[in-house]
């Protein structure tokens, strides 16, 4: 591309150094994961005797069979799916409606309200947790699905994203429909919403991933084992590290919990990267 052939030798040397560094960093990225997978395939007694036994047979699927058979992982996965799915659906609905409202319609106090919503973007979760926890105690919402889902619906990011997106759609589209005397709801539903599908995908994936990986709120709200989300449940088994079930079992559980999200990532990579970087810059 840009190669003046002045110092090919020095250049090749520099390239090798950079390549070596990138390879080194890649190894740092991969090695811990391979280690975890390796341990998950080993018998616990053998591991304790010599960790180097990871590098040779016999390997066993016993830890995975135990994971599927005995741990509560399935209940936690179910809870995580309900919570993340519910929150994603709710966020998409609320954000699309509000985004359309703020971008296209006018009502008294609109601009002031929008500024207040924008201010909400700067409020960290920790600033509202204590009061939120007290409110939910009074409503008896802890250890329920609504207790885990509802707080996420107050996050302003989706509204901000959808408002920007609706604003970018040419006004001529809905004005034409308006002239045909279509109702606002119809225009929103039939004309504009289909155009926002890419934004819906981005927001949906971002919300789902955030809810799936959320740790703090589920930790303080779901205290009963059968209401744990996957993140909290996995954390609860970590506390008795290296005892009881054994390292291999814990590692199998980690692989079991981590693999699906990594596979999803490989398929939806483009959307996930856009969603995460977009949310950071906002």
């Amino acid at each position, binding site marked *: 591309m840009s190669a003046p052939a002045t110092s090919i030798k020095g250049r090749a040397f520099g390239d090798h150094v950079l390549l070596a560094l990138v390879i080194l960093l890649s190894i740092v*990225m991969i090695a811990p994961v391979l280690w975890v997978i390796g341990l998950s395939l080993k018998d616990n007694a053998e591991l304790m005797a010599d960790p180097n036994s990871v590098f040779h047979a016999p390997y066993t699927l016993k830890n995975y069979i135990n994971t599927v058979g005995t741990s509560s992982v399935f209940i936690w996965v179910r809870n995580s799916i309900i919570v993340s799915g519910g929150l994603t659906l709710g966020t998409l609905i609320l954000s699309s409606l509000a985004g359309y409202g*703020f971008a296209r319609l006018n009502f008294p106090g609109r601009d002031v309200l929008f500024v207040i919503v924008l201010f909400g973007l700067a409020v960290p979760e920790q600033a509202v947790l204590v009061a939120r926890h*007290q409110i939910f105690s009074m409503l008896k919402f802890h250890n329920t699905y609504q207790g885990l889902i509802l707080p996420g619906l107050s996050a302003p990011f989706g509204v901000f994203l959808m408002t920007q997106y609706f604003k970018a759609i040419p006004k001529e589209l809905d004005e034409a429909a308006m002239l045909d005397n279509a109702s606002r709801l119809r225009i929103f539903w039939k004309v504009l919403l289909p155009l926002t599908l890419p934004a819906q995908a981005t927001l949906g994936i971002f919300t789902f991933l955030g809810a799936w990986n959320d740790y703090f709120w589920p930790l*303080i709200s779901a205290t009963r084992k059968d209401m744990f989300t996957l993140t909290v449940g996995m*954390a609860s088994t970590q506390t008795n590290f290296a005892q009881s079930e054994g390292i291999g079992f814990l590692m199998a559980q980690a692989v079991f919990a981590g693999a699906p999200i990594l596979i999803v990532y490989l398929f939806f990579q483009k959307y996930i990267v856009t969603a995460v970087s977009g949310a950071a810059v906002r």
Partner: protein
Amino acid sequence: MADRLAMSPTATLAVGVRAPTADIYAPQWRNFIFVAPFLFFFTTLLLFPLLWGMWLSFHKADTFSSGNFVGLGNYARLYHDKVFLQSIWNTFYFVLLTVPTLALIGLFLALCLNRRTRTAAVLRTLFFSSSVLSVTIVTLIWRIVFIPNVGLLSTIYGWFGATAPAFISDPSLAMVGIAIATIWWCIGLPMMLFLSALQQIPQDIYEAAALDNANRWQTLRSITLPSIKRTFILVIIIQIVLQFQLFGQAWLMTRGGPNNLTKPIVLYIYDTAFRRWDLGLGAAASEILFILILVAAMAQYLVTRSRGDQA
């Protein structure tokens, strides 16, 4: 119907077809219905708790009662609480360990992987992949790296007959261990932000530089780096806001120990409010955190806004 008749200035100026379209942009109460559902949750679960949290911070409160007014008592207690002061220091120390490293490694990776080869694409995928994992899995992975006996690190050191540094139990290394796990977890975002900034640099500048026989170092120093200066600042601020909220890694890897040396502010809030149920004190601590994060968020807003102006 009255507001339908009240024409806006544009409507009076426009002729024929334009008139009805100008009319629809006049303020109408019924339009409020579209934003009402979101505003309901926003008000009850964000604004109200925010204000209530401030109010709580002036009270001695537990789970079910809001207790007695103590004025600035909770803040005074924080000021004299060695553990809280330690947690502020710990948080800053952690930010100092992680943020510059994340920015520099992220920039390095972006510069190396900003090309259209298949290998570069695979490596980009690899370096971002850890970001989709939950904190629970990340800490599980890194504890199994750091743990004595069966840990990856101690196994590698064992090959050379050496003893691995105790990244979790050694007081001077525990925070470094948490920082390493965090950098591993979070490296994807800075890399991606730098990559998208690099792709926005116009190619013709590079072509001009190539014609002037500029070498790679000169090109990097006088074209690439100045063009992404703003992104660099943005990455730093975003990471400060994110890393300031350290909680899961510290809680799961060290429980804040040894000796509270890895206890960050958020863990202090968790301990105070949700384990000792001293909600007033916990609320006061979260107000302090809120102010610290607000400052960083303001800086971010100013940086992003000025970028918008320039574009």
